[in-house]
């Protein structure tokens, strides 16, 4: 226990001391320079700790991954586009299909449910309490969420008592229990629902904030003109919410590319549930093929790039 505690103390003191010490030192050097030069240099000194960490953790590894993706299993010899041919080849096809399922189902379900939840929250008197219930799962780790849902999905043969909540419910209603995680074609949806459970809270918060910005008079005016709930939703709410919905949906889409923990803990990619990120972990630690793993990483980057470009464009337009 002692090494942990001394490391906590060290981290809590050393990190701020290093960062602030660097800035103070930098300032004492800059201050002696002519004013124009000060103004030019200062921001870079202030950004240096950030640039250093982002460089070490994100930029440099990104460059290395690009290099490794055209190298052999050990990261040595140049093999051209071989790894990419593999990444787009037969071995990866079922994995890619699963990711396409995630990519279409997960953002749609999460965003759809979040719109419903946000509109309901807007109408009820217990908004704060309900909101707390919905965001609770977003606070817990994917590992814990997976443990919880392995219990929820637990399956026993039909003649045994069902210990899993879902199958007990089915049995109580007179249906046969379902092996949620074993049955191919169904299990990916079971995993996706775990992700929905864990992400709905944040999606609802964001859309809820969007709902609150819709001017009340606009809704009132539409109602006075004889619009019903459905028309108000379709012609007032949805168009006003559209930018917010887009933000939420793209965030969820990016999430699907990264999804790893849920699959790793619940099925470890068996029974036809594998996704890109888990496959990559497998290539890295089981097959130990650095080239394949890096090509998969580049594939992820390629899939994320439309959102990256979109975000940069929007930010630039706003700035």
């Amino acid at each position, binding site marked *: 226990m002692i090494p*942990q505690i001394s*490391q906590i103390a060290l*981290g*809590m003191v050393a*990190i*701020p001391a290093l*960062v602030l010490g660097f800035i*103070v030192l930098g*300032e004492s050097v800059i*201050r002696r320079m002519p004013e124009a030069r000060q*103004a*030019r240099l200062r*921001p870079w000194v202030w*950004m240096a700790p950030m640039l250093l960490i*982002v460089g070490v*953790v*994100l930029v440099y*590894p*990104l460059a*290395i991954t690009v290099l*490794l993706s055209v190298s052999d299993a050990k990261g040595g010899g140049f093999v051209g586009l071989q790894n990419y041919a593999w990444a787009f080849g037969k071995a990866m096809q079922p994995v890619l299909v699963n990711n396409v399922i995630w990519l279409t189902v997960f953002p749609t379900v999460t965003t759809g449910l979040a719109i*419903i*939840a946000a509109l309901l*929250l807007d*109408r*009820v008197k217990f908004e704060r309490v*309900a909101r*707390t*219930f*919905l965001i*609770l*799962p977003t606070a*817990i*780790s*994917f*590992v814990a969420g997976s*443990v919880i849902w392995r*219990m929820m999905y637990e399956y026993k043969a039909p003649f045994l*008592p069902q*210990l*899993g*909540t879902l199958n*007990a419910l089915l049995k109580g209603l007179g249906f046969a229990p379902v092996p949620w995680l074993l049955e191919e074609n169904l299990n990916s949806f079971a995993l996706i629902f775990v992700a929905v*459970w864990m992400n709905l809270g944040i999606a609802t*918060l*964001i859309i809820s*904030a969007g709902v609150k910005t819709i001017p009340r008079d606009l809704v009132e005016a539409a109602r006075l003109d004889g619009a019903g*709930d*459905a*028309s108000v939703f379709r012609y007032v709410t949805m168009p006003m919410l559209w930018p917010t919905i887009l933000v939420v949906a793209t965030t969820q889409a*990016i999430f699907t590319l*990264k999804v*790893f*923990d849920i699959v790793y803990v619940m099925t470890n990619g068996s029974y036809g549930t594998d996704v890109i990120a888990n496959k990559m972990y497998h290539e890295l630690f089981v097959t130990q093929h650095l080239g394949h*793993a890096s090509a998969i990483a*580049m594939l*992820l*980057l390629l899939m*994320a790039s439309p959102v990256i470009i979109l975000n940069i464009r929007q930010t*630039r337009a706003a700035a």
Partner: protein
Amino acid sequence: MSGSAPDIAGGVGESRVKQAVASACLALLCVVWFTPVLALLVTSFRTEADASTSGWWSVLFAPRFVIENYVDAIRITGVGRSLVNSIAVAVPTTIGTVLISAIAAYSLAKMSFRGGVAVFLALVGLQVLPPQVVLVPMLKLANAVGINGTFVPVWIFEMGLTIPFGVFLLRGFFAGVPSELIESARIDGASELRIFLQIVLPLSGAVLASLAILQFLIAWNHLLTPLIFLGGTSGLAPLTVQVAGLVQTEGGGMSLLTAATFISIAVPLLIVIALQRYFVRGVLGGAVKG
């Protein structure tokens, strides 16, 4: 969406019915969303014999709770040590992320200079970078520094993964701090560092707390980074790694696993309930353009 019954001007009675329906639907959603957590909590207080023969809801008919699972989880499995390890991962990471993001975000928001926009846009792009892209070089580095090392590489990587978001969040807030305030302090001869520490930071308590909470939760909940840098079984493994290990070895049975899992989510749940205002603000500040 179309084809619904035409709504004739809604009377008071009708709107009351609508509100009741909305309340019922939302209440149902809340029940569905909370049931899994409740199932975990209840199971963690049941004996292994009970948990392996009947579902958690049987406690309604035969309430019998024990605390042994928690005692065993801490004594046998070393969950207590993992709890300390999780703190050791999350707390220094949080402090570093907030401080480094704040200093960088201030210079991007309040010092105009060539290249500032480019740096900011690059950060916006990196914010969405899948962490897997940096995984392989990360592993090589981990091997170079040795797996039985310290928490230092975990801190650095966790910081690096969140700082682009942190700068984005804080820059948006700092940009809203009135420039006159800063200008007049500059005219009074205050140094830039003094302005930052004594004027800007005290105004930013809430947004700094938001970033701190988000980073704490992220670092507390991550599996992959500590798994790679600290190893699966070492004495430095945090709660996520420990729980994932328990799942895979299926050691200790359901009751031990559920107790360990509940210990791992207790801190994040408390934070989100108690500090919900800041959590919500952080989530919204990151989603809505700053």
